[in-house]
């Protein structure tokens, strides 16, 4: 198995130069996988655009990384006799244990030991498979990422944690989430090849926590433009701490990089407060809670805003609400409830974050040749005299469909219209769908979201197995890990849907969701996503009259006599689903 040509932008790992300036290296042979290939691609563009390595005083780079190429995974699986079909009946934890007991190829272990001996900052061990982040085959968010604190003084101990993390990411290739998703998208997981990125985590140490001040996802095209921005001006989602908050659809702040002072639409500051981020993720540097290499969050800790304020990180991202005047003041000088609106950074010009994001989105659009989505993290703590750093973590092409569709005919007879909305992602016409799975509004109550998720997942599994596409209707943010903001499903649990509708109810009324991974998958797969405020654009009576296939406690599955017409005008964001 001779090594193939090296990925563009990287050099072969050389243990003699671990501490030197080789910031993008690879081990083994094969392909780098989607994430790593994207980073390799953009690296030279970043070097060219920021020749001094910084943007207005903020260092900008891709955090140092080493890629285990896909050949290492192939050899690992083959040499240890791991066969997908033989492990298919096991739980994810059992699969993970099989992988933990297996041995990494001898050709790379020495280099991994040398690598970890020279690095003592927290590391993210991330998937980079062949199927991830390709334009039309988005496996984003399907595989695992494991963060390790990497702070033991003993290099052997750090090596063991690294090896466990690599094996865990390998195992996630065959977890149920991945298998369900592959089946739903018509892929054969046996053909999947997993690369692994071992990368520095951008951040600072705050006591026993390591996290960035800001992490985020920015897109060069927005389906929900803010008041003063056009769709092509883009959007950014920002969170305090690790980007896991955004990836899992938790509360985050969204803004337009070209108009950073414009807040998202809201009815009142109380509504903003209800939807503000109140907890953040960090890498735990202290004693881990319980040793479990089969658990993705083994070394992560979730803390609240009081902790962030005590750490000193909140001062750069928070504002304070004065109930008496019903006004927000930037920063934390005053007493009162805190709101994460990132105004000190976005408005106070203490750091050129908005300008930098705009620059990067433009660069990505130019180099990739399409709209793009980027992930990033910013370590920022000048108050403590610590150096800042902007880490560019990922770039993905976005498919933006703006062809337009004629809705007039579908809207001609209102009696046939099931769903009508002026806030729709997607474009064009979706055919071949007769089934609808919807959350019953009368059964929906606060706290029931997890049970709803379970029923939806079971229905999805049944429909996927039967090859039956459907329209999915529910309340709150589909995919939010927070059951008080939405229904906590993973993408693979709803991947059989060909159109998704997000309504709101008084008891479930968060800001419209743009869960990072769902969004990417939706747009790339051409799945329209309807937002229907107050659920007023949904013809409930018509749904109730459709013949039921299954009627569960929270979820009802019905079928239309004829094919549904699902139409979206990508230019205006108007869409309809009609019988």
């Amino acid at each position: 198995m001779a090594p193939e040509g090296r990925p563009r932008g990287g050099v072969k790992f050389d243990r003699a130069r671990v501490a030197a300036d080789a910031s993008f290296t690879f081990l083994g042979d094969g392909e780098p996988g989607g994430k790593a290939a994207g980073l390799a691609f953009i690296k030279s563009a970043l070097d060219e655009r920021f020749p001094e390595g910084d943007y207005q005083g903020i260092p900008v780079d891709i955090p140092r990384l080493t890629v285990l190429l896909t050949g290492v995974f192939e050899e690992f699986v083959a040499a240890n006799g791991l066969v997908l079909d033989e492990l298919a009946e096991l739980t994810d934890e059992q699969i993970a244990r099989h992988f933990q007991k297996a041995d990494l190829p001898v050709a790379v272990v020495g280099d991994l030991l040398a690598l970890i001996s020279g690095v003592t900052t927290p590391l993210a061990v991330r998937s980079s498979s062949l199927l991830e982040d390709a334009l039309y085959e988005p496996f984003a968010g399907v595989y695992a990422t494991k963060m390790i604190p990497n702070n033991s003084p003993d290099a052997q101990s750090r090596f063991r944690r690294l090896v466990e993390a690599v094996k865990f990411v390998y195992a996630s290739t065959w977890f149920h989430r991945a298998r369900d998703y592959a089946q739903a998208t018509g892929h054969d997981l046996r053909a999947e090849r997993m690369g692994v990125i071992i990368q520095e985590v951008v951040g600072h140490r705050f006591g026993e926590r390591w996290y960035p001040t800001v992490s985020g996802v920015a897109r060069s095209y927005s389906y929900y433009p803010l008041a003063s921005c056009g769709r092509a001006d883009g959007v950014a989602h920002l969170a305090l701490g690790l980007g896991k908050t955004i990836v899992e659809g938790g509360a985050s702040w969204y803004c337009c990089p070209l108009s950073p002072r414009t807040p998202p639409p809201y009815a009142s500051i109380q509504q903003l407060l209800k939807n503000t981020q109140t907890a953040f993720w960090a890498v735990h540097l202290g004693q881990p809670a319980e040793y479990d290499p089969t658990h993705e969050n083994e070394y992560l800790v979730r803390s609240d805003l009081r902790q962030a304020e005590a750490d000193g990180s909140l001062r750069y991202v928070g504002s304070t609400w004065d109930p008496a005047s019903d006004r927000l003041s930037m920063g934390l000088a005053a007493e009162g409830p805190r709101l994460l609106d990132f105004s000190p950074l976005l408005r106070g010009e203490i750091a050129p974050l908005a300008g930098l994001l705009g620059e990067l989105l433009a660069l990505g659009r130019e180099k990739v040749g399409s709209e793009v989505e980027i992930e990033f993290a910013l370590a920022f703590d000048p108050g403590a005299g610590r150096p800042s750093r902007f880490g560019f973590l990922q770039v993905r092409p976005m498919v933006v469909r703006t062809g337009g569709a004629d809705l007039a005919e579908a809207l001609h007879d209102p009696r046939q219209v099931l769903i009508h909305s002026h806030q729709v992602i997607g474009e064009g016409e979706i055919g071949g769908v007769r089934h609808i799975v919807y959350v019953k509004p009368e059964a929906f109550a606060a706290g029931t979201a997890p049970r709803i998720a379970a029923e939806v997942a079971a229905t999805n599994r049944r429909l996927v197995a039967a090859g039956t596409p459907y329209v999915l209707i529910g309340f709150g943010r589909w995919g939010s890990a927070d059951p008080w903001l939405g229904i906590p499903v993973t993408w693979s649990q709803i991947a059989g849907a060909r159109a998704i509708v997000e309504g709101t109810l008084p008891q479930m009324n968060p800001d419209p969701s743009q869960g990072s991974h769902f969004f990417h998958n939706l747009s790339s797969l051409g799945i329209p996503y309807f937002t229907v405020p107050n659920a007023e654009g949904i013809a409930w009576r018509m749904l109730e009259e459709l013949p039921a296939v299954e009627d569960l406690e929270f979820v009802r599955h019905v079928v239309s006599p004829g094919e549904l017409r699902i139409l979206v005008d990508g230019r205006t964001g108007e869409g309809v689903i009609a019988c």
Partner: protein
Amino acid sequence: MAKESYNPFLMAQAQFDKVAQGLSLEEPVRELLRNPLREYHVSIPVRMDDGSFRVFRGFRIQHNDARGPAKGGIRFHPQETVDGVRALAMWMTWKCSVVDIPLGGGKGGVVCDPHNLSLREQEQVCRGWVRQLAHDMGPFRDVPAPDVMTNAQHMLWMLDEYETIRGGRYPGFITGKPVGMGGSLGRTEATGYGLVFTVREALKELGIKPEATTASVQGFGNVAQYAVRLYQRLGGKVLAVACWDQGDQVSYTYRKQGGISMDELSAITDRFGGIEKAKARDLGYEQLPGEAWLEQEVDVLMPCALENQIHAGNAERLSRQVKLIAEGANGPTTPEADLLLEKRKVFVIPDFLANAGGVTCSYFEQVQSNMNYYWEKDEVLSRLDVKMTSAFLDVSELARRKKLFMRDAAYVIAINRVAQACHERGWV
């Protein structure tokens, strides 16, 4: 094995003397280091299966233990000689020193042919050997291991006998134990992998990619098989392997121009590394005379069998294409052959560096056994890689700086370390 004209101990002493001269070592130090500290010669009476008795001759030579307990294997061979064991014990001292593990050098043997002994008889030889030597060996004195024609089972019999005599459990007494009975994961592969770690580093130094090289290997036992596997994994192609044919009592070389297949050959190889010749021919391998392995048009030679294989009589027949020799066996190249190789600028990784993977992993096993805590294989092999690579780099750096042949540089480092230890202990 040992020809009358070839005395391995004299060769080992000659190698030492040359380096000692260059280092200007004082005479007492030279005298101390060019001879073993202690020797034990034993007689082992065994009742054979047919009821008769035989008395086997055995040895244990402790060359030097200034840096730590003596370490070295026990070989069963019908042509074993005490000079051969002395040489091997000395090479073990240098080997442990050059990879910088805290052990000294020792070696043992019994003059016998296990092919001609039943399992019960072999067990009696093993137990008898330990009975004779138990009070002069142990986890903190002298730690034996497998060697030519001894294996994990032999080690377990010896351990059991030792523990019976001592009245306790002493897993650190002996290495090469089976995994699960005090053995270390990775031990089986260690010597072969360690050899290729040094090959990998040497090729880097020569500016040659492994995938652009071919190799020929003498021997097809444990060391050679794992070396071939890893070398192929790095992209190299092995064109020929040579092995001993027990039936014909000669060696043959098996060649395939497109590269040998480990899966094919390992399926037709016995536990002593002998390839079934008829099956090899059926699989398309050319069967050539035994010495043909060193005449192949390849870049790398890996002698992984016995000593004295590249000598004045055959060194000229090496192909001009050969750029690197990695000595998987002990003493495969004579000093006279060394001169020719040096003249041809062939890069030689000396035996006691190249094949130190085995003793390094033995050291790991000893550590784990003494702690009664065992590491995962990833950890063992990663430590092995780093240790071997570090040792190679130390030697090659000295060779470059002082413009020395690699063997000489390795000896300088090794001997200096041992001499320093003897001096610091106040021995000389």
